[in-house]
Each structure stands twice: as structure tokens, then as C-alpha cells.
């Protein structure tokens, strides 16, 4: 398996791939984001209970999904790095942290804005909100750790270990609304179906995909930056950069 997978993840190949895809995915993502924003704001019907304000859902929920998935991605890469010592997974880990931080911040801010008119408060220390706030601190901590050590190898190892430990928080965020009494409502989309009417539900995957494209383009640029700072001086990289 190693030789089939690993040969596609040589830094120079990944660099080329990222160089090729960063701008197209950004353009596709931006257009998709603007179109689906227009769609969810103007075309979808208002909600019976919450009226127009429920439309924040379409930025809140995809960001929440992404903030948690990106953290799992960090932990998986940390695991692979610790076991197989593959440089590229350390590069992936380093490049994804800032994107996860952005989405966690978006979740908390959009949730605050949403909370005031519906719940009656911007912030309350319930289990869902507190665990998401801890996720934000985890991302900030990882970013702080990135620049705390002089050796890249030490940094990568510490980041891997910390991101694996922090993954414990992800199931807590997910199940916090089931385990404890929270002000935050339960999950709308479960294995038994969706509590969001199918007419409105379509906006969710649209926003999710466009945000995925946008975050991939940032991710690709971060990877390029990360590869250059690590291997920019090698002759193979020089050839690629100089064409």
C-alpha cells in the first residue's frame, strides 16, 4: 500500500498540484459561494418559527462541520506522521491549522449573532458553546506551538501529539447536545432523517461545497508556503520554481 500511495505525496508533486489548483478552486469556490449565498438569502422560504434570521444556519452549520472535520484531519495527519514519519503529513497538518481556526471563529461569531434574536443572549456557557470555544483555544494553541520551537522536527512531533490529544474534544462537541441539558438545540440532521424541511435543506450542501472549495484553495497555498520554507533550497524545488 505504501508504495502506491506515497509516490503521489512527494513534496515536489504536491507542490505542482497545489500550484495548478489553488487559483481555479478559489475562483470556483468564490463564484459558488456568491451564487449559493444569493440562493439561500433570496430564494429559500423563511422559517415558520424564526422567520428570516434562520438563514444564518447556512453559514453556521457548514462552518461547524468544517471546523470539526479539519481538526480530525489534523489528528489523522498527526497520527500518520508519528507512525510513518512522512514529511508530507506534517506539511498538511501545519497548513490546515489556520483554516480550522477561521471556521471555528466563524461558527462562534455567527452563532452569537444568531443567538441574540432567537435565544435572547449572545453568549451562554452551555456544553455545546463551551466545547466549541475550547476547540477555538486548541487551534490558537496549535498556532502558538508552531512558532515556539527552533527545530521543525520537534515542532511537527509536538503538533502531532497535541492534535491527537485534542481530538478527544470532537466527539464531545458532537454529542454535547445529547449528553447534557443545553440551550443549543439537538442535531437537525441525523441518521433517521432531517428535521430541516427538504425545501430548505438544499442550501446546506451548496454552501458546504463552496466553502470546501474556498478552504482548499487556501490550504493549497499554505502547503506551497510550507513546502518552500522546508525544501525551498533543494535543487528539485528550484527547478520547479524556476520553471
Amino acid at each position, binding site marked *: 500500500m505504501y508504495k502506491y500511495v506515497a509516490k503521489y505525496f512527494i513534496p515536489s508533486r504536491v507542490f505542482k498540484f497545489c500550484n495548478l489548483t489553488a487559483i481555479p478552486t478559489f475562483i470556483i469556490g468564490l463564484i459558488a459561494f456568491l451564487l449559493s449565498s444569493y440562493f439561500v438569502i433570496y430564494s429559500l422560504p423563511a*422559517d*415558520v418559527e*424564526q422567520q428570516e434570521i434562520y438563514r444564518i444556519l447556512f453559514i453556521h452549520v457548514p462552518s461547524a462541520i468544517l471546523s470539526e472535520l479539519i481538526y480530525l484531519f489534523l489528528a489523522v495527519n498527526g497520527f500518520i506522521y508519528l507512525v510513518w514519519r512522512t514529511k508530507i503529513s506534517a506539511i498538511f497538518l501545519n497548513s490546515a491549522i489556520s483554516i480550522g481556526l477561521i471556521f471555528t471563529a466563524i461558527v462562534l461569531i455567527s452563532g452569537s449573532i444568531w443567538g441574540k434574536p*432567537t435565544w435572547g443572549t449572545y453568549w451562554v*456557557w452551555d456544553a455545546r458553546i463551551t466545547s466549541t470555544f475550547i476547540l477555538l483555544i486548541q487551534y490558537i494553541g496549535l498556532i502558538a506551538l508552531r512558532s515556539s520551537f527552533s527545530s521543525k522536527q520537534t515542532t511537527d512531533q509536538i503538533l502531532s501529539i497535541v492534535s491527537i*490529544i485534542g481530538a478527544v474534544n470532537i466527539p464531545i462537541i458532537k454529542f454535547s447536545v445529547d449528553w447534557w441539558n443545553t440551550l443549543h438545540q439537538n442535531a437537525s440532521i441525523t441518521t433517521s432523517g432531517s428535521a430541516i424541511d427538504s425545501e430548505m435543506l438544499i442550501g446546506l450542501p451548496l454552501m458546504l461545497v463552496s466553502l470546501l472549495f474556498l478552504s482548499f484553495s487556501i490550504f493549497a497555498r499554505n502547503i506551497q508556503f510550507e513546502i518552500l520554507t522546508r525544501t525551498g533550497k533543494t535543487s528539485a524545488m528550484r527547478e520547479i520554481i524556476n520553471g
Partner: protein
Amino acid sequence: MIRKNRLNKIYLIIFFLLSVGLITFFILRALEKNIDLYLTPSEVKAADFNQFDDFKLGGMVKVGSLQKLEGLEISFIVTDFQSEMTVIYEGVLPNLFKENSGVVATGSLNPEQNQFIATEILAKHDENYMPVKIEVQN
């Protein structure tokens, strides 16, 4: 094939992750009472705590129980479908506060009248989203 030393590393990480998970589990179990944002009426009746302390009471607003008293003062019954508690509140209400809908009230018990005097009301909405059907009348 995974080499032996790598397999050992995988076991080590899994063991490590499991122990961190277990530690978190026990910490959360120990803090269980403090993590819950609110107590339900049955929990309040079962609990033996200082009645003058502030706490949060949560549940559904019982259908037909919402009454306007003088001024901005209202009273309603919070129910968890097992026991009930009367709540008195004076102030501004959130938009989504209504009968047969979730509510979380901050305040303290009035022991003489078995009432809950609320200082803050938060609305707890459910996970259902339904489109508004505009009925066109010709």
C-alpha cells in the same frame, strides 16, 4: 505489511488516546452537575440544595399557562411532562418565547409560594425548520 516497530507505535498512540479519552470521561462525570445548563422541574424537586441560590430552570412552557399580570410581569408554568413549576418574570422576552416551546429561566425559588422568580428568560428553540407557506387569496 506494517513493520513491527510501526505497529508498536500505533498501539502506543491508540493506548495513549484511549487513556486521554478515559481521563476526560471521568472529569466530565465528576463535573456532570455543573455542565448541565439548566435543571428540569423534576430535578429541582428531587434536589436538596439551598433554595436561595440562583440556578437555571428549563423545560417547556405549558400550553394555556401563560398569563399576563400587571405591567410587564408574566407568569407561566414550566413542565418537563413529569412535574411542573410556576415561574414569575418581569422584563423583556425573547422573540421565540411562547407556549409549548422550550425555555430556560435564571432565578431563584420563592419557598413560601413554591414559585420560581426569574431574572432572565432565554428561549430554547427546537431543531425543526419548516418553510413559511404563504397563502395567496384571490
